């Protein structure tokens, strides 16, 4: 028996994430995820920040698509303080979050391809993500950590030319999706390596508390945007792709990858609808400079690219939160690993972990 460490660096997860593996020849006897390499104490920092001052930290919870963290926090605080968000702001939030989702899924697919040695697609994914980053730059002035959704609305109104540029991007990405589908699933590389790899049945997925694309890959149609709509998602028409196990078992790694690729096209569909007729009005409801939320507690969830991101805030009536807690989707994935890695091949470990799209920062916060 030997102990092999997968990580902390590498492309199997985003950020430092280590898995300690006890091997038996080429087979894995057991695998233990090791968390805390990126524990930055974000929840503790919240206790000494003002309500608005904490927004930049919510970027860093899930930095691949930081606008989802902002939005979850903003929704929770708005719920707590009873702030009405203007229609226009909600619509802009939808556009921003779906663009963030496209970017995040592209990175997830690219990292998966990189783990399997498909450098070409990795480079393609980075190229496409660059375009999404450009749009964010137009919108918020930052590429990655943009603190865009603020309490009561969004930070800035959409800029001139943003709508046209976004349409251009959507057109571009929609022509690219069939090509990528061919590139990934047409060849043998993904099919042979991933089909039937680490299948998660739907009872197991529920038991482990999976959410998001990982859960939908097991065939369950759960999506916060449908089940508990926020920001006017109920008025938008979109599908929720689920894994059907076309080639292999339902809920295997290939299904998880396939669901992500389909979600990109769903997201681009949502953005297209949202761009049509953005309501007029203000993009931010007036919030006093020294904002104090009333005493109480509130919770809000959003559908982040990795699953349901929930935020709980408690206030004691002061200028800042008393407690902020994030329930991150990647964390519940970890409970699967000891079981799912047992008996796998050592060379498959990185592929299995990568197919769940774990973000270390979300796990550790």
């Amino acid at each position, binding site marked *: 028996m030997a102990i092999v460490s997968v990580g902390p*660096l590498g492309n199997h997860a985003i*950020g430092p994430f280590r898995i300690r593996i006890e091997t038996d020849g080429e087979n894995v006897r057991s695998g233990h995820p090791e968390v805390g390499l990126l524990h930055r*104490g974000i929840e503790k*920092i919240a206790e000494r920040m003002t309500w608005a001052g904490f927004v930049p930290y919510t970027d860093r919870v899930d930095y691949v698509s930081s606008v989802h963290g902002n939005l979850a926090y903003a929704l929770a605080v708005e719920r707590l303080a009873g702030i009405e968000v203007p229609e226009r702001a909600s619509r802009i939030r939808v556009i921003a979050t779906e663009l963030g989702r496209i970017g995040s899924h592209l*990175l997830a697919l690219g990292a998966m391809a990189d783990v399997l040695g498909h450098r070409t697609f990795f480079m393609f994914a980075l*190229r496409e993500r*660059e375009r999404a*980053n450009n749009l964010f730059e137009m919108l918020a002035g930052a590429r*990655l950590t943009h603190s865009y959704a603020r309490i009561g609305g969004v930070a800035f109104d959409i800029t001139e030319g943003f709508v046209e540029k976004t349409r251009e991007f959507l057109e571009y990405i929609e022509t690219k999706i069939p090509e990528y589908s061919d590139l990934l699933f047409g060849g043998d590389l993904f099919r042979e390596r991933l089909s039937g790899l680490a299948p998660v049945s739907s009872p197991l997925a529920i038991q482990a508390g999976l959410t998001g694309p990982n859960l939908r890959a097991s065939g369950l149609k759960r999506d916060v945007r449908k089940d508990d709509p926020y920001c006017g998602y109920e008025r938008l028409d979109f599908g929720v792709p689920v894994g059907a196990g076309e080639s292999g078992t339902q809920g295997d790694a290939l299904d998880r990858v396939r669901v992500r690729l389909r979600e990109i096209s769903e997201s681009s569909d949502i953005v297209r609808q949202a761009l049509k007729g953005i309501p007029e009005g203000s993009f931010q409801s007036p919030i006093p400079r020294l904002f104090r939320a009333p005493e109480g507690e509130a919770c809000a969830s959003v559908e982040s690219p990795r699953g349901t991101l929930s935020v709980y805030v408690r206030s004691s009536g002061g200028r800042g939160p008393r407690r902020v807690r994030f329930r991150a989707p990647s964390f519940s994935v970890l409970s699967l690993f000891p079981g799912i890695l047992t008996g796998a091949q050592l060379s498959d470990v990185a592929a299995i972990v990568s197919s769940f799209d774990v973000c270390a920062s979300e796990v550790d916060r």
Partner: protein
Amino acid sequence: MTRKRYEMGILENALPEYAVFSRLDRLISWARENSIAYLTMDLACCGVEMLQVSGGRFDIERFGSVPQVSPRHADLMIVAGTITYKMAPLLRRLYGEMPLPKYVLSMGSCSNCGGLFSWEYSYSSVSGADKIIPVDVFVPGCPPRPEAVLHGLLALRKRIASRHAAVREEAPGEWGKERAVK
């Protein structure tokens, strides 16, 4: 221009075109600065931007730099992200495993000085990579733009060119022992 910068010269008509004269340390640093393989210390948010630097748009490979995941094959360590107390010993160890000559580029506020997660705010992160390893170049930003990282790389290349490369570099040795992580 390149020849001038490295003080390389040619003897007109005396020797074929491809015969170039230079000083040994200029030649060595010319070779070094044009083939920097960097170890991707993808520690947090800045790591995503570091990925983008190697992507098609910014294309760090045109400067002869390639990402590298093994410290044994790396010349430069790009520390991209927050260094937590749990990660700090690993960072030290990876730095120690890199062969000489080795350089460190600190990317982003977190590894420059702690940034959003400096000791004033966070109880679990080191306020800067320079507290635990020697740093050659600091790139500010949270996260820095990829262009800024490229600029940092160019600054590092200048620094390499200005060193006397033929003189054997000393190992940093016990550097930082007294500045160990508290």
